[in-house]
């Protein structure tokens, strides 16, 4: 592994961590809303959130490209008002990872919140706790395993993101190249030995992330 390859590994880890951190607040809020309340359009929101799981990642990438490109609705706004470019920058990598991994977090968090007995929350309220306090000390505390598992799962999904990333972020060495994109590029260049080295690294990281999420979800049993 040379310096460039390590750069790719750490860039991917850093960006995946950032993307996961960014989806945690909205992901938990959505999971909680879906678990606890009935509201108009709920099934529509659920379906839209699940879409990136089943759509071809390249199709998701194309939608993002059209929205966030310099001539896209959101991209043009950001560019004209804040001089901010998204497409072909590291921001696009974050964006692609967020969109592709948030469904996993929302779904796991929702199940975790549903498993919390609402009576326990009511009891806390009758004892005088505010809604905020109930959420952080009862609901979140009881759902924490499911949520952590979901976060790790989302993180693992981000690490492997390829289809949407290649469209919106491209493959710019040292700037937007992630593990997945670099492996693809090495194969294209016929540099299979380099591709295999990165392959080993990504299998190792993915294994650790998924294993950690399994351990958390199964309440700490290691094997």
């Amino acid at each position, binding site marked *: 592994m040379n310096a460039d390859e390590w750069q790719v590994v750490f860039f991917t880890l850093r960006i995946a961590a950032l993307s996961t951190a960014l989806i945690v607040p909205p992901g938990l809020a959505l999971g909680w809303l879906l678990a606890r309340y009935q509201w108009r359009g709920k099934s529509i929101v659920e379906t839209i959130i699940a879409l990136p799981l089943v759509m071809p990642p390249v199709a998701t990438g194309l939608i993002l490209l059209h929205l966030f490109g310099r001539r896209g609705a959101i991209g043009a706004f950001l560019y004209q008002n804040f001089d901010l470019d998204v497409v*072909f920058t590291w921001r696009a990598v974050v964006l692609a990872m967020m969109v592709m991994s948030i469904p996993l977090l929302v779904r796991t968090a929702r199940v975790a919140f549903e498993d919390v007995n609402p009576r326990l929350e009511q009891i806390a309220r009758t004892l005088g706790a505010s809604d905020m306090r109930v959420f952080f000390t009862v609901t979140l505390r009881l759902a924490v395993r499911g949520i952590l598992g979901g976060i790790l799962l989302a993180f693992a999904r981000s690490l492997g993101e390829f289809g949407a990333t290649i469209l919106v972020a491209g493959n710019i*060495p040292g700037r937007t190249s992630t593990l997945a994109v670099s492996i693809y590029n090495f194969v294209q260049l016929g540099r299979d030995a380099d591709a295999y080295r990165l392959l080993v690294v990504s299998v190792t990281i993915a294994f650790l992330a998924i294993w950690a999420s399994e351990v958390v979800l199964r309440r700490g049993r290691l094997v």
Partner: protein
Amino acid sequence: MSVLRSLFLLILIAFPLHASEVRVHAAASLSDVLKEVAARYEKRSGDKLIFNFAASSTLSRQIREGAPGDVFFSADEAKMNDLQKEGLIVPATRRSILSNRLVIVVASDSRIRMSNARGLLSTEIRRFAIAEPSSVPAGIYARQYLERIGLWSRIQARAVPTENVRGALAAVESGNVEAGIVYVTDALISRIVRVACEIKGPDAPRISYPAAVLRDASDRVAAGKFVLFLSSREAMTIFRRHGFFAR
């Protein structure tokens, strides 16, 4: 019975037995012009052409991995040399057919002006698209040129590499990069980009598109006939109309 017989005859006429399928791996920059050449050739020969368009580097890789095909039409001699070294083409059928020129394109509504490639140094150009500069022919030609005029190391950081030359064109069309280096033939097929400057002079790359029959061709005769047709006057007329010129 007579109905069956006439049906049989009809099928024989519709699908002549001697017609072959020729599978052509061709450089992405040839995708539009070859469709036109193909229409002419299919009518004349009765053979059917099936294309696989991608960067020549991708194609050479696919051929080396055993992708089925009859003809390789590359955008540079290097990829053909690689295949020849590995014995994957029929050397006697190899011929250099076309040449091309590089240009710098910008979006038609862009205000950027430049008289030569040094214009890429301008701060107006935050990023420019270029086909992958270490493997894809269009990218290699562009990088080597920029190296020769001492520009590459100064603008390399702003290069956005794309999978093939049409990817670089698309990046300029979408407005996501300010400029791109493509072939003049690519610039000609797009209505929403304009040529900001042509790359010419003694340092300009000598671009050459060779074609050859592949060793594992299923019908070498049909494949060879198509390669010959590519350098015919008839085909060359179509190539010229698209901005290519004879080698």
